[in-house]
């Protein structure tokens, strides 16, 4: 499959500050690629360069085979862009706003259809200034899909939406993917990336620090087995377990392990042999959240969060 979006070693600076420091990724046709990151990680700065809103300081961007900045007319008719902040005249109604946008597009959907897609039909005659933040977000999404884009760029599409609207937005994005649309989105909601992304990249301080499918990114993190240390027992009495053992003051034991099944088997066999009841026992695979937090905390100089922990094995 041809790559619809190719980003190669892109850099972008504001004054003396380098917000994007050599970012490389590609998005295949029909794929949803998510850029994850904390605020200020450089997601939007990267996205703006890919959308052709800004010229990269260095590096190369291709969208549908064209330079999105220098060859704007060749690219724009085939892409849809949702910005973080609406940018609609406050005194136009929803329908008037969408009709204005439709008038600027080469092959727009009917306005009513686009509003229906984002559940705004009921608010069609309302002026933009009377819309809630979530409704404005949906209007922005309606405009982004109005031109039947081949590639859709969504900058934090569900920020500020209520849970039901989020679900509806996800459903719409999924149906667009089913139709073969390629999507590049930024988000700081991990569940959104887990739900939608074929592949994702975690950005931190202007760089991509993890990339791949959700499973690949998560695989870099250990699974966690945890339980409460039985009251009459010292840490030293615990068996030798594969992985890293951490105990907090509240006598809660966590084992971080790359081999969850082996660790769990050893633990349970030991407990049966000793007749020990393990309260609050849980075993969970690594999550995207864990991978994300590991990246996010790697910056501030606090390596891990083991301030009050005793490392045994």
């Amino acid at each position: 499959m041809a790559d619809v979006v190719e980003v190669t070693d892109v850099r972008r600076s504001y004054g003396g500050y380098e917000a994007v420091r050599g970012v490389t990724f590609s998005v295949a046709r029909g794929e949803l690629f998510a850029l994850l990151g904390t605020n200020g990680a450089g997601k939007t700065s990267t996205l703006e360069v890919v959308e052709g809103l800004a010229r990269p300081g260095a590096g190369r961007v291709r969208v549908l085979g064209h330079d999105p900045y220098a060859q704007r007319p060749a690219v724009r008719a085939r892409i849809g862009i949702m910005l973080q902040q609406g940018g609609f005249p406050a005194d136009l109604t929803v329908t008037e706003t969408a009709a204005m946008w439709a008038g600027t597009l080469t092959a727009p959907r009917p306005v009513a259809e686009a509003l229906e897609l984002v559940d705004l039909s009921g608010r069609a005659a309302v002026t933009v200034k009377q819309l809630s933040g979530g409704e404005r977000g949906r209007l922005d999404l309606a405009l982004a899909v109005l031109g039947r884009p081949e590639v859709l760029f969504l900058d934090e599409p569900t920020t500020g939406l209520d849970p039901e609207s989020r679900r509806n937005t996800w459903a719409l994005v999924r149906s667009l993917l089913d139709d073969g649309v390629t999507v590049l989105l930024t988000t700081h909601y991990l569940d959104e990336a887990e739900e939608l992304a074929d592949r994702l990249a975690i950005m931190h301080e202007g760089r991509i620090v993890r990339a791949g499918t959700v499973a690949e990114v998560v695989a870099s993190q250990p699974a966690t087995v945890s339980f409460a240390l039985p009251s009459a027992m010292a840490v030293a009495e615990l068996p030798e377990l594969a992985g890293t053992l951490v105990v907090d003051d509240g006598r809660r034991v966590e084992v971080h392990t790359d081999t969850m099944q082996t660790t769990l088997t050893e633990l349970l066999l030991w407990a049966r042999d000793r007749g020990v009841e393990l309260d609050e026992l849980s075993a969970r695979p690594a999550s995207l959240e864990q991978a994300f937090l590991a990246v996010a905390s790697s910056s501030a100089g606090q390596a891990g969060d083991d301030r009050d922990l005793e490392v045994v094995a």
Partner: protein
Amino acid sequence: MNTLLTSGAMRRIRAIATAELRLLVRNRTAMFTALVLPLITVGGLSAIGFGENGDLPLGALVVTMLAAFTLLYVVYYNLVSAYVGRREDLVLKRLRVGELTDAEILAGTALPSVVVAVAQIVFTAIVAAIAFGLDVPVNAALAVLAVLAGVVMFVLLAAASTAFTRNVEMAQVSTLPVVFLCMASLIFSGGVTAPENIPDTAQAVVRFIPLSPVVDLVGLGLTGQTSDGDTVGFAASWGEAAQPAAIAVAWIVLGLWALRRWFRWEPRT
């Protein structure tokens, strides 16, 4: 800027202009500025006898003054407000993510104000012709071209003026330098004030003010009056037009340059 007006461009400009017209109609202040202010200004000035010592006959005087104030209020002031308002509401940023070119966005936003301005000038010319017996223009084409050049000039000046206008409220102040300069142009124009009462230095300087070529050319086109107080016929009027026309073109070039250099598409962060 250099694309031809293709059918696609026309369609896109019309879409923006339609939305902008709705916004204009819903904005009472802008509607007052566009429809009423030029008329009451010219009416008030006529009532106090402004321009009665000048060379222009009353009908031509009224049309010239109204063209001047319409360009100032309806095109210049209104558009500074509109461009700044759209910029601060992030509308310009939004429009730029689509298929529109920059020139189409600026043209579409300007179109309703321009149409209102031109309609008002035409309407006034007709009323003046009936009420004050406007003579058959010496060179009507020249007057029309002068108004069109004025429109282009003040659209560009409005766009350039957004660079030093932080928000819509500030437009009331930031537009004053251009408005006052243009008032001076009107006061020291030979058609309005008797030429012998205008100091030579003022006359030399004033002709370079943006509004001056428009006032000179509209007066010249309607009556054949030159800024020196002579009267010429159709053929000679083209020659007399050369210098003001050159000044108008210079302002248009300067406006384009300022626009490209200083126009911002989103609020200062």
